């Protein structure tokens, strides 16, 4: 495996999986209260970390995901969670000969619904800090059959269980989680982890968050499951990055967010920065 540390100080890597705001949620919502977000995430890459973590060239591929994320407190100890990527656009560039001007390969586009995640969070009876169990069901509502491999989903039903713990004070908080993702249809099971530290600035209107998250594949899936392109099997990465949330109204119920995700290693993922912006509301 090539040691990319020696070549590039900081690699950016796309995490085309459960988005960062689903990671590390230790607290449940108060009854009747919710958090709702419209998010737009994008990545554009012409390199990929292949099945052995080697960087392999790709045609320039862009993935643009528009999604809705929501949390709603059913009871003080039970929160419903939903992630709905209602518009996923995958684009592969055309290739053109510089000398002849000939179009060698035409561009490819796939617009479709993505894979949804529905689940819940249950607060655990721990007094010293916040602790919860997160259960998410990944529904194969995306397109896993596109003829060129530009999938918007993996075509399998997975169940993710995470234990999350967190603690905070007036100006800061931190939380982390460990999880197991059981996958079907020949995809390998996964170990998932994440951690974040957040700090409130400017009269609590700006939240600055530093996030770490990662996936380790058990490698126990079928070799025939996809290993090229988006939603490949045996995805692994270790990613880090900042996120900023800013409340745009004085009541601090509406805000905008921006985040960038990078990674220091990867396998079967695109090798490029992932950027995301969104608007959110809490009520």
């Amino acid at each position, binding site marked *: 495996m090539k040691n990319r540390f020696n070549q590039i100080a900081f690699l950016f890597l796309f995490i085309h999986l459960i988005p960062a705001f689903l990671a590390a949620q230790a607290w449940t919502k108060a009854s009747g209260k919710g958090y709702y977000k419209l998010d737009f995430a994008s990545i554009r890459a012409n390199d990929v970390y292949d099945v052995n973590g080697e960087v*392999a060239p790709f045609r320039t591929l862009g993935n*643009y995901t528009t999604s809705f994320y929501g949390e709603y407190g059913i009871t003080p100890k039970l929160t419903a969670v939903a992630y709905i990527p209602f518009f996923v656009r995958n684009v592969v*560039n055309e290739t053109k000969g510089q000398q002849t001007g*000939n179009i060698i390969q035409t561009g490819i586009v796939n617009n479709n619904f993505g894979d949804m995640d529905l689940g819940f969070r249950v607060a655990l009876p721990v007094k010293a800090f916040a602790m919860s169990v997160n259960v998410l069901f990944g529904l194969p509502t995306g397109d896993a059959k596109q003829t060129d491999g530009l999938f918007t989903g993996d075509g399998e039903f997975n169940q993710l269980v995470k234990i999350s713990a967190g603690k905070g004070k007036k100006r800061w908080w931190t939380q982390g989680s460990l999880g197991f993702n059981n996958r079907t249809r020949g995809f390998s099971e996964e170990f998932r982890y994440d951690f974040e530290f957040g700090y409130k600035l400017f009269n609590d209107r700006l939240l600055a968050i530093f996030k770490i998250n990662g996936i380790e594949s058990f490698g126990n899936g079928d070799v025939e499951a996809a290993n*090229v392109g988006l939603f490949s099997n045996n995805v692994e990465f270790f990613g880090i990055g900042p996120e900023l949330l800013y409340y745009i109204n004085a009541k601090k119920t509406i805000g905008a967010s921006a985040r960038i995700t990078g990674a220091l290693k990867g396998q079967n993922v695109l090798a490029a920065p992932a950027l995301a912006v969104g608007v959110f509301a809490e009520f």
Partner: protein
Amino acid sequence: MKQLLKITPVLLALILSGCIGTDLIDDPIISEKLTILPRIDSLALGQEQVFSVIYTNQYGVEEPVNNIVWSSSNPEKIVIDAAGKAEVLLPGKATLYATDGSLADSIVLNRLNGIDPTNNPDTSFFKQGVFKPGSGSYFAKGRVYVQTIDGLSQILTGTDFDSSPGPSVYLLLANHTNGNYAVTPGSHVINSVSAQITANKLTTYSGKQTWAIPPGVNPANYKYVVLYCVLGPVFGTAELN
């Protein structure tokens, strides 16, 4: 709410972004060549046939060619004039040549014996190679054969054939191994740089298999058998010998 409305147009613009861009790449360089057409190997006694020549440059693009000099190895059997018109005079064999002074091509007419050539298209061709891995960690291995028997051209793999699976892998004949081949699902894209052999993506990635070479593809014009994923990676190449 007003603040939300201010942000929404920006968000809508982002949602609708993501146009198909253009990757400019260096055109693959292949050998320039002259090719005599049609590629026949027999003519009937007394038959006339007009031959032509096409020139493809180092990028595989056809260009006009002038000042072709034609000749016959056996002018008593078959003559050919400056315009490429050939006439069979006696039974036997002969080779016709065409050159522009720097490049040349030839065809062997080994049956000038009065037999209608359209009834006996037998042309033998055989080459073989061994797959080597392509880009990154994608791999292919095993033997591959290209043959033409009784006018039917095929590509065959041996029992030792094995390759990485993928969602959109196609089999091609090509004159380079650098990727970026023209592939259209459901079709056979054929040009002087590459020829798409499988119309649809592969579903089996190991063992003995046979694929028919589409009409219009002369396997003698290509140097490699290639396994290529349309998203970019070359899974494996085999140089034909």
